[in-house]
């Protein structure tokens, strides 16, 4: 612990204010009674939330597209990513280092390029714009998060409990299932939540891979802003902000995962 100078404290407060400013402002706009993109300190209105749920486009983008796709990608990313993490952390085999680097590739390739590459690839088979194409892309984006969180969890558990179980007569699979898996639950859930959020807020990939029937909510927000929509956009944004904040809080408080990656 250390005492900080008032100057430093002021700089910290200002920096956090700037990081949070755009998010706070969007929430403000969503309660604006008029139809301009501005924060109105005079009155409050819930009309844009009514418009959100009454209208077709946004409610569909949220409930029929973004949420199902995020859920499916999170499940796929957690299953595939956890298996890869177990192989990397627990076992030795030739070419492991190379594989480990390759496994972080989706993070190194900028997601707009992954989007462009997938779009041009799918268009060879006329398979673009489907749920499957988005789920595949988002699964790729989510897996590195799952691998990081689950590897950290596996390191933390160590091998002793597993060895104890095996010396008491379990085989490796049973030992893992009965002893390690229950201990790994919070890491798996945190990984899944991160994969969910990555998919839910992604726009770079969706810009390319979404089709007319699979417009995700961030993409819908983007096109409404470009075409001069009304503050329903802000209401949609606020719904995402609230959902994401609660999930981050859940990971931090309930699963006690340290947020710094």
């Amino acid at each position, binding site marked *: *612990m*250390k005492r*900080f100078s008032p100057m*430093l404290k002021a700089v*910290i407060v200002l920096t956090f204010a700037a*990081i*949070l*400013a755009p*998010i706070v*402002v*969007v929430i403000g706009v969503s309660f604006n009674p008029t139809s301009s993109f*501005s*924060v109105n300190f005079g009155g409050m209105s819930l009309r844009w939330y009514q418009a959100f749920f009454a209208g077709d486009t946004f409610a569909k983008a949220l409930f029929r597209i973004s949420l199902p796709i995020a859920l499916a990608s999170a499940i796929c990313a957690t299953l595939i990513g956890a*298996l*890869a993490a*177990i*192989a*990397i*952390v*627990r*076992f*030795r085999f030739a070419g492991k280092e190379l594989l480990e680097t390759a*496994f972080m*590739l989706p*993070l*190194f*390739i*900028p997601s*707009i*390029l992954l989007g*462009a*590459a*997938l*779009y*041009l*690839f799918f268009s060879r088979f006329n398979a673009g714009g489907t749920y499957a194409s988005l789920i*595949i892309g988002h699964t790729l984006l989510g*897996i590195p*998060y799952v691998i*990081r969180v689950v*590897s950290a969890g596996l*390191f933390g558990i160590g*091998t002793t409990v597993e060895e104890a179980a095996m010396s008491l007569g379990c085989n490796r699979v049973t030992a893992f299932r009965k002893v390690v898996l229950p201990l790994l639950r919070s890491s798996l859930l945190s990984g899944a939540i991160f994969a969910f959020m990555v998919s839910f*807020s992604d*726009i*770079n990939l969706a810009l*390319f891979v979404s089709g007319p029937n699979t417009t995700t909510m*961030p*993409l819908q*927000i*983007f096109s409404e*802003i*470009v075409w001069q929509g009304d503050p329903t956009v*802000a209401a949609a944004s606020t719904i995402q902000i609230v959902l*994401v904040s609660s999930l*981050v809080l859940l990971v*931090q408080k309930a699963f006690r995962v*340290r947020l*710094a*990656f």
Partner: protein
Amino acid sequence: MPASMRSTSASSSAEAESPRTVPGKPWMWLAAPYFLLLLAFLAIPLANLGLISLYTRSASAIWSTDLTLQNYRQVFDGYYFYLILRTLRIGAVTTVCCVVLGYPLAYFLARCSQRALSIGLFLLVMPLMVSTVIRAFGWMVILGKKGVINTMSQALGFGPVINIMYTETAVVIGLIQIVLPLMVMPLMAALEKVPLYLEEASANLGARPLETFRKVLLPLSLPGLFSGILLCFTVSVSVVVTPALLGGRNARMIGNEIYDQVIASLNWPMASSLSMVLIALTFVIVAGGQRVGKRFRREPLR
């Protein structure tokens, strides 16, 4: 923002203590599903991108399979080249601003109480997980002609004070907000490892705070600084939405051009070669940066 995990404290601390692994050839098949996924939906699509970048554009069928280098020649003259230069400039300015803004924040988080740390990390990670389009939208509302800043200054009697929407400055502001957490996290991880007594010793020997920073904290946090710079730069040169909303026509970046060529002008060979150039740039920067970074890596302090 997926890039946030490229260099992580979790992994570096995990690598430090050598893990107990079991020789187990059959178990490597656990990694097979992910390997196949990467092969089918990353490696092959990227190879396909490389192939299309050599095709000839055709007005009637999007491409013809006659191989040519014409697209790459176009990338390096005139408009596209200028676009690449602007992209690199915006990335560089954003990164420098993040270094300046990131150090105080990272230092604070590395040295504050457990309670302040958990609040601080929440305030840092939560915005990172909110879609970039929402954050760009927020800046539009703040910086616009009738935006929050101008309305407030008018109410106080100063009249409109800023008109920076649709400029590079607006894009840089939007990007800083996006990539600053990516600078702060590796910096924080590096600064945490510097024991407090080194700072105290430096102060005892008569160094002023800035001198302590320059001679003790800065050299010892260089590895974190390097990963932060790499993250910030690579993320900020490959964006679409932020320049589209905050920069308009005046601050278009490579990402916007790739998007328009793919979706609007259907010039897929051109879009592919621009993408290949961006991939090459990213790899050169990451590889070069890691090489420079290694030189500065020191033995961890005990």
